[in-house]
């Protein structure tokens, strides 16, 4: 099973599980995520954000994001093709208000494709560990926008982590909001 299939299955199962629970109030946001890594690539993709009353009265959000330079800097250029599979848990301050402050921890997998067997001796993947913080705004329309900055605690070191995993990143998310599902 390739990575794309795993991602689709993961997203499908996640959504199925969410809809299977009907007792508590839950919010789901799905949409586009754009990431700019400082001094490196623009990497775009899709994201999912889930919260419910059980998660500290919707103060904690669980997130899943797929980002890739294939949908950003690598389009029509020689930029390396690299993918992020990110899962995060973020705490939301002022969660009942339109403008919220968020902070959290991300983990996941980073994979880079060098497209040449000469580079098979280089590290091609790494676990992700990152901190992230920023602002989120819930518009009156069912749209949520967030602007965050983050720091990859694990980043390329010239030894065992791919060198194109850079530390500082900025993210803009635009998501469709489904409340009280």
């Amino acid at each position, binding site marked *: 099973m390739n990575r794309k299939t795993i991602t689709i299955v993961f997203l499908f199962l996640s959504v199925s599980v969410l809809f299977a629970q009907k007792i508590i109030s839950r919010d789901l946001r799905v949409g586009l995520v754009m990431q700019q890594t*400082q*001094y*490196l690539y623009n990497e775009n993709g899709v994201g999912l954000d889930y919260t419910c009353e059980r998660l500290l009265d919707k103060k904690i959000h669980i997130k899943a994001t797929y980002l890739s330079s294939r949908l950003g*800097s690598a389009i029509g*250029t*020689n*930029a*390396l093709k690299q993918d992020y599979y990110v899962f995060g848990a973020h705490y939301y301050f002022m969660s009942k208000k339109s403008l919220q402050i968020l902070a959290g921890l991300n983990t996941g997998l980073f994979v*880079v494709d*060098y*497209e*040449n067997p*000469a*580079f098979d*001796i*280089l590290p091609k993947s790494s676990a992700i560990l990152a901190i992230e913080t920023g602002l989120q705004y819930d518009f009156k329309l069912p749209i949520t926008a967030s602007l965050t900055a983050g720091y990859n605690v694990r*980043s*390329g*070191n*010239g*030894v065992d982590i*791919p*060198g*194109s995993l*850079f*530390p*500082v990143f900025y993210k803009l998310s635009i998501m469709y909001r489904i409340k009280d599902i």
Partner: protein
Amino acid sequence: MKLVYTILISCLALIACNPQPEIDNATMLDGNQINDLSLTQPSKYLVSEYIANPTTAQKDTPVIIAAHGYSATTFEWDELRDRANLKKTFYVSQVLLGGHGRDYADFKAATWENWQEAIKTEYQKLTTKGFKNIYLAGSSTGAPLLVEMISSGYFNAFTIKPKGFFLIDPIVVSSNKTLTLVGLVGPVLGYTTSILETGEAGKWYVYRPQESLKQLMALIDLTRKNLEKGIVLPTGSKLKIYKSKIDATADPVSAPMLYKGLKTNDGKNVEIEMYDSDLHVFTRLRGRIGVIAKDTQNQTAAFSDMELQVKL
């Protein structure tokens, strides 16, 4: 509120102070007593100085203009020059990058364009003297300086194009990712300190001013962006990348970035060879401690290959 003001004022004071290092003039290249020998004996290092009026045979002999890395000196290419002197089939012209091999103040004031100027000057002098088989080699930061000369079309103005380029442990991405934060933390730190082995003392700067680190970051970021767009070598030129698979200075990911971004004039890929080494600039062994047989084999293999390439 007082606490907020105190923190703010402390931060501003830190940013404003830009600390200066303590330089030992007697032992450090950063001081005003030790300089790179090419400054006082240029004819020993530069072929344009060594051969004032070249014969026809000398003009046909391959010359490798060798550019060293950030904070280093001509010392980095001494071993290739020694090999050239022994073989007598090619010359090595060791250029000292601008702002290097002098003192801390010069290093602090120099831009990457200043670093590059020495390479351009030697290429211009050699072509003017009629040398026909000119190659350029860059180790570490010497490599992006050469790549920028290619991407900016520097060689277009010359009738005599370079025959080839050799990039040894080229840096496009730094292994130390703190360099990407130099704009933020640089003014607070003022400089960073590197630890030299005994045999390296007086050959490298110990202190790296934040101004020069910003220049390094600007150069490698520009190089990466140009590689993403694609860079075509001058007509008839070839290029080979020699890269250690583990490198705590120039991240090995620099190699695939260069490989993808560079093409010969007829659209072919450049050559790449990854070395089983954990040394940065694995072709320089002099001055290092703990050199093992594998390191010597790697150096010999790379030098032999370069020698073979200039013969072709």
